């Protein structure tokens, strides 16, 4: 069977010079079309010009989705967003051991997640409030002061985790203190991607147990397949100077059941990307996004 470099046998012997000197410049994703005789420096500089021109053209050619274009020329209305952890609709405290679905005793000590994006949509306009933000709610509610264009909004569209284009960005190009920057504590070095949700604590499968639950759980969902989106109806009238208030509730009790599926930690309490345990991660992702609700509804 003929095999060889380039798929042929025998390997071609070259009669020309034994070496070439190359300082060439071939952007990944583009064809390496420079020849060994090309002036390297001029190629590099001219390529920069070409990329700049092409980028300008690209931006000019690509318009925003008109449905996501805010009304122009009007002052934005202040919006205070609260992301509020609750347990079964009531207060949540990370030091409390709760009774969860499946006769489990649960103490949640870490809950940190990306919402990306957060968009408000209405009959006439839509607005992306942010493309990605990180919320660490283990210690209670987290607030953000934002703004939206005037208008009537009747739905919130959000993603839990990061969409592909954000999940695969080069970390070195992001300011360290940005939500997706190095200091987020969410980067998964081994996969050059992010954890979407860090959900950790202790549990006990004995509902009659007392004191601190004996076992730990550590569910770090991530990888593109765990990204979830959801559209939640709400009623929001943005007008005038008064600060709007909007709350995203995260009902942690519902992380353990949606009334149908139950997250039984005795059957799996750890996920850090192991493909053999992927069904556990998918169940967690499905339950978690369903546990989000919004006020005012």
């Amino acid at each position, binding site marked *: *069977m003929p*095999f*060889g*470099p*380039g*798929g042929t*046998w*025998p*390997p071609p012997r*070259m009669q*020309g010079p*034994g*070496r*070439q*000197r*190359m*300082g*060439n*410049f*071939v*952007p*990944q994703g583009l*064809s390496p079309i*420079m020849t060994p005789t*090309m*002036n*390297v*420096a*001029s*190629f*590099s*500089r*001219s*390529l*920069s*010009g*070409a*990329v700049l*021109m*092409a*980028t300008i*053209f*690209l931006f000019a050619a690509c318009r925003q989705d008109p449905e996501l274009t805010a009304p122009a020329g009007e002052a934005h209305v202040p919006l205070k967003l609260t992301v509020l952890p609750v347990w079964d609709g009531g207060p949540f405290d990370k030091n409390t051991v709760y009774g969860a679905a499946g006769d489990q005793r649960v103490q949640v000590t870490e809950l940190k997640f990306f919402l990306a994006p957060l968009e408000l949509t209405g009959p006439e306009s839509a607005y992306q409030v942010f493309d990605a933000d990180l919320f660490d709610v283990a210690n209670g509610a987290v607030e953000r002061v934002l703004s939206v264009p005037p208008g009537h909004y009747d739905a919130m569209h959000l993603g839990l985790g990061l969409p592909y284009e954000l999940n*695969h960005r*080069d*970390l*070195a190009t992001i300011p*360290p203190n940005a939500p997706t920057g*190095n200091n987020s504590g969410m*980067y*998964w*070095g*081994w996969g*050059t991607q992010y954890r979407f949700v860090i959900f950790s604590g202790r549990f006990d499968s004995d509902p009659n147990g007392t004191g601190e639950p004996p076992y730990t759980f550590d569910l770090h969902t991530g*990888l593109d397949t765990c990204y979830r989106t959801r559209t939640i109806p709400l009623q929001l009238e943005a007008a005038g100077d008064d600060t709007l208030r909007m709350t995203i509730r995260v009902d942690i009790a519902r992380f353990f059941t949606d009334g149908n599926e139950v997250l039984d930690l005795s059957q799996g309490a750890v996920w850090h*990307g*192991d*493909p*053999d345990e*992927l069904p556990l991660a998918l169940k967690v992702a499905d339950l978690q996004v369903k546990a989000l609700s919004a006020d005012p509804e």
Partner: protein
Amino acid sequence: MTRRATACCALIALLAFGAGCATDELEPLPPDKALFTLELPYGWPAPLLREDNPLTVASVQLGKALFFDERLSLGRGLSCASCHLPARAFSDTVAFSIGVHGHPGERNAPSLANVAFHPLLNRDGGAPTLEQQVFVPLYAEEEMDSDPQQVVELLKEDPYIADLSKLAYDRPFDLYVLTRALANYQRTLISAHSRYDRFLQGDAGALDPSEERGMQLFFGEARCALCHSGSDLSDHGFHNIGMAVGEGADPGRQRITLDPGDRGKFKTPGLRNVALTGPYMHDGSMTTLAEVIEHFDKGGLDGPDKDPLIIPLHLTREQKDDLVAFLLALTDEGSLDQVE
């Protein structure tokens, strides 16, 4: 600018963005932006460079300084070179390198020779660029277990690093510079100057008869070149070659793609300097080239995910010896490091 360069740029723009562009005459680059000259054998493909990281002399000098700097592990005794030893073609001598906490890693440290040609990095392909790959050992608990930003804070006050950073990238030392410089230094680690290369360039006496028979087997009956092809002797693809199977086995590429079809697949390693890069396989479980050839001669271990390319070969003792002889002829006759 040459007319040819102008034409190439216009072609790139047209192909990539569907629009033409005009270019102006540009001033010569200042000396500190001088492009690094890679020496490659005639006929080799162009390495994969990135438009946001020009391969300049200053950038590779900075990258080399960082590569050997133990401050990347926050002063805990490990640099990149601790596990990618220059004398071993930038691989390690043990199955699993020992990290800052004294524990072994999970996979054998691969050679860095010719990584400039790899479309995906790491044995599982989890890093899409050399720049992003820098984060893998920095973050890995079983390797450096560093916070990259802390590394930056530690290094940015070093005048040598600060000056080179400014020179190479016109900015203070930061994560961007750290990753770009390290990537560029690794791009200069070219392995292309072995007796096999001399043979390809027309020196018929560069290989002895056993080595030449081994080469014919390699590209023919022994089926090695089905995966170990091209200048780098790697297709840079992912294959399950019939290593350990079952519960607890390394999922390989499946960990990145989550595709069950990628179970146990690992990137084909280049075989240049293979005499220096043992122990072999993703888990370093084979210590000699003879063991590796025995593995493939038997067709690997049976398993549902094994690549159908891996079949029993039934090679003779002499053929196996010839294959080993050829593999030994893939050792570079000089340093891989082109950076002074």
